[in-house]
């Protein structure tokens, strides 16, 4: 490449501005990658080492490779219990968020009625109330008034409530983009708008539903504050398990790293599988 001369940005600019990958660019990219994934790889590798190895050479590789830490985590019943709780809570949160979200977005997008915009504003305002603000009263309401303390639903329903504003804000433009003729066709067919919603609108909105679904799932899977207040003992989720394991076994660094690494795998797999959807959802949220 002609722009090997690193100190001449001008030439690089004119020649192949947006097509050029000079050695310097690759070097910077390499540094960025190392810093980004370094800690993750350190965690995964640390799980294959003993505590003695870790203390001896903090930055070394496993030598020899030890599988006991991972085996220990995977054979602990509490780990599977946490994983089950995380999965069920994330599944309920996602289902409720997506279903209620698209139901609310539908009339806000496709019905003409007085008070439509003020009603939409309610959801927009909901964006400004983060879970942290009213977390203590929320804890009291869920445990005392609704008797849902230490249960799957007690965490999933509030999480769905906090995910709904963003879901409606993302889905509304989606539904608005569908052609107007859909309603007319349904009218002529004599089918109701409710039927139209289930049989035609929902299938057409699937890409949008997957986007908001993934965002809701990842948000629930990673949540800490609300489960921290609401769940104890056997009902704890993986992030709580990770945090508690880390404090209880603070001297067992290798064990902590193995536990943490396994806990991050589901989110990473989901992310890699549905990366496009997550990214497009976030971009949509920013544009909207």
């Amino acid at each position, binding site marked *: 490449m002609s722009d090997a001369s690193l100190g001449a940005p001008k030439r690089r600019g004119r020649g192949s501005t947006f097509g050029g990958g000079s050695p310097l660019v690759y070097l910077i990219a390499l540094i960025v990658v190392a810093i980004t994934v370094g800690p993750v790889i350190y965690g995964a590798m640390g799980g294959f080492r003993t505590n003695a190895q870790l203390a001896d050479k903090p930055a070394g590789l496993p030598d020899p490779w030890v599988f006991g830490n991972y085996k220990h985590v995977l054979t602990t019943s509490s780990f599977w219990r946490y994983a089950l709780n995380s999965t069920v809570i994330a599944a309920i949160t996602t289902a409720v968020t997506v279903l209620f979200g698209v139901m609310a977005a539908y009339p806000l997008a496709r019905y003409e009625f007085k008070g439509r915009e003020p009603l939409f504003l309610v959801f927009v305002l909901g964006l400004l109330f983060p879970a942290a603000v*009213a977390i203590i009263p929320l804890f009291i309401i869920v445990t005392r008034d609704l008797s849902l303390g230490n249960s799957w639903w007690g965490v999933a329903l509030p999480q769905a409530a906090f995910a709904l504003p963003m879901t409606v804000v993302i889905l509304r433009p989606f539904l608005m983009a569908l052609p107007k003729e859909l309603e007319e066709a349904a009218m002529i067919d004599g089918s109701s708008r409710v039927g139209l919603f289930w049989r035609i609108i929902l299938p057409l909105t699937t*890409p949008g539903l997957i986007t908001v679904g993934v965002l809701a799932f990842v948000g629930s899977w990673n949540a800490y504050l609300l489960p921290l207040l609401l769940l104890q003992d056997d009902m704890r989720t993986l992030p709580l398990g990770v945090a508690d394991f880390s404090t209880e076994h603070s001297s067992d660094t290798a064990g902590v790293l193995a536990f943490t690494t396994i806990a991050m795998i589901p989110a990473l797999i989901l992310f890699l599988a549905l990366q496009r959807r997550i990214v497009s959802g976030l971009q949509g949220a920013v544009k909207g």
Partner: protein
Amino acid sequence: MTETATAVSGHDAPVARRAQARRAPGRPERPAGRSDAWRKRLEIALFITPALVLIALFIAWPVFYAVRFSVYKWKGFGPLADFVGLDNYRLVLQDPDFLHAVGHNFTIVAGSIIVQLPLGLGIALLLNRKMWGQGILRTIIFVPYVLAEVVAGVVWYQLLQPQYGMVDAILGKVGLTPPEQGWLGTPEYALWTVLAVLTWKYLGLAVILFLAGLQSVPEELYESAQLDGASWWQVQRKITIPLLGPTIRTWCFLSMIGSLQLFDMVWILTGGGPAGATTTMATYLINQGTKSHNYGIAGAASVILFVIAFVMAILYQIFILRRDTQDESRKARKKVKA
């Protein structure tokens, strides 16, 4: 978003065509009668109520409770009887711990933007070039954002352990002496260390959003600038970055709101310590509520946190985001005139 939207309209093209074909010529539209109007209202209610009920139960009701608690002295049991007016607010606003927490929040707000904006822009511009391994690079840079704050926090806690943590080991090899109590254990460094870990965690979001914004910059602009002999840096400064304006402003807004609510990472890394060096408004109100059972104080702190977030959101909307909407409406007006 745009991509998926087009995918949708691509899908329903046949449906639309069918709909048009069915609209028989001269067939009158069904007149909307009185029963139809009621039916419509019923349908709207049916669709929206579930979402509104959840929001009322788990957002509006707790916020109402927080405001109510904030004017009582209440320890979490018995009736709300000990009305103290605005005393809790006075106590919170005079509590040096809370004022420090507010200061820490604002340090994180400013620090996140000052550090992540240039870094994120730089990396996004870098990744926007056609280069080998671009797709993988984009995936990798986004990985920390997808991890739970707790997971990232626990790994970084191990990395930052004094002496035998990896960070100190590397610094030692280079010949530097890390602080004896560790980066998280030394009050002067703790907040900056938390900020560094947060930067690692959230930089990927900035990069991905900026990259998306860059993709909407039309290629012809670059080409004509290049023909005019503009340098790479001139092109970025005069064309790319101004066109990224709306994306940058929205990202700043998201970052600001996130920093004001900061809890998880601090709780895992330091628990607010050492000696209160890293407390935030959220850790303060959790401590007041769950540990000291001062529900009135926690309520007042909640309301103050919300008011701060709300005022900042409104100010940001008025002074910064409004430029975008104004631009858009100006564009729209132009279109109408044309």
